[in-house]
């Protein structure tokens, strides 16, 4: 039975992901959704900026000027952000952390362009967290001996009594889930809040929602990007351990 909405304008609230068209992928029903389109737009923005930056850096001068200044400043800031928590391990992770930082940041603030932020889709944030998880464990197996990992996994109890192993294993699996859910829920809450404001208030929501956009899209998005990268770096640094 159809349930009537309490507010007449409640029909106009729209923050869901919509399927655009459907195709069959080896018998599976696969949908191209609005998230894909938003990711494509975000990618085009990033690629366009990257091409412009590449052109600017090809004719780089000793004393930077104009656009070259901006690009150098960005690279310096990103590298400085990685240097903080990672110390001497940092140079190997400039690329990874810088890439996910730029992608998540542009995704989060794409709400300002009228897009539905791609990071408000769990299918986007979970693969990002899985990537970080893979990097963490690749570095753990690369830099620590198997025996060290085993001792670490049985940590509060001696290594011949692996009762605590299961609890530590759940703790390891919780890392990507909490990383991705934190980002997803923050951006989704902002999206839902703005959709409610625009959907329920109608013409009354004209100019002042800009302040909400500044908080939910810019501030919250930037903070969550920073948190995601910081936590990734901390976990990776822990996985590398006291190797050097």
């Amino acid at each position: 039975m159809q349930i009537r909405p309490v507010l007449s304008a409640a029909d106009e609230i729209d923050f869901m992901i919509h399927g655009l068209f459907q195709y069959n992928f080896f018998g599976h029903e696969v949908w191209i959704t609005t998230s894909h389109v938003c990711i494509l737009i975000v990618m085009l923005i990033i690629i366009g900026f990257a091409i412009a930056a590449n052109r600017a850096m090809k004719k780089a001068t000793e004393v930077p000027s104009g656009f070259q200044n901006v690009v150098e400043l960005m690279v310096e800031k990103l590298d400085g952000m990685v240097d903080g928590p990672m110390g001497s391990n940092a140079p190997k992770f400039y690329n990874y952390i810088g890439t996910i930082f730029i992608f998540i940041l542009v995704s989060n603030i794409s709400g300002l362009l009228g897009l539905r932020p791609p990071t408000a889709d769990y299918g986007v944030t979970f693969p990002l967290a899985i990537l970080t998880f893979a990097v963490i464990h690749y570095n753990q197996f690369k830099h620590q001996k198997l025996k060290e990992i085993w001792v670490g996994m049985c940590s509060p109890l001696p290594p011949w009594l692996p009762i605590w192993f299961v609890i530590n294993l759940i703790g390891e699996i919780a890392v990507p889930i909490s990383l991705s859910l934190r980002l997803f829920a923050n951006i989704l809450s902002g999206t839902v809040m703005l959709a409610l404001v625009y959907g329920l208030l109608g013409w009354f929501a004209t100019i002042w929602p800009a302040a909400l956009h500044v908080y939910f899209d810019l501030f919250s998005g930037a903070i969550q990007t920073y948190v995601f990268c910081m936590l990734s770096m901390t976990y990776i640094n822990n996985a590398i351990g006291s190797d050097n």
Partner: protein
Amino acid sequence: MEFNTEFILGCSAIGAGLAVIAGIGPGIGQGIAAGHAAAAVGRNPGAKSSITTTMLLGQAVAETTGLYGLLIAMLLLFVKPLGK
């Protein structure tokens, strides 16, 4: 026993309201963090920028538990897993 859709939706709304009570915890936690950060800035004004960064990072991590409650509420209200 069979329930009609309105009953299930109403119960889901009550459940969503209860789930959002999870916001109390992060509120208290973030308040404590901000208070201690203010005290730290008072003691050492030179370290203001790094204190602010640390505070915001800690607060954003502490917010997660509240957001889990929000997620449950949204699942109950918009995905309606119980009414199917």
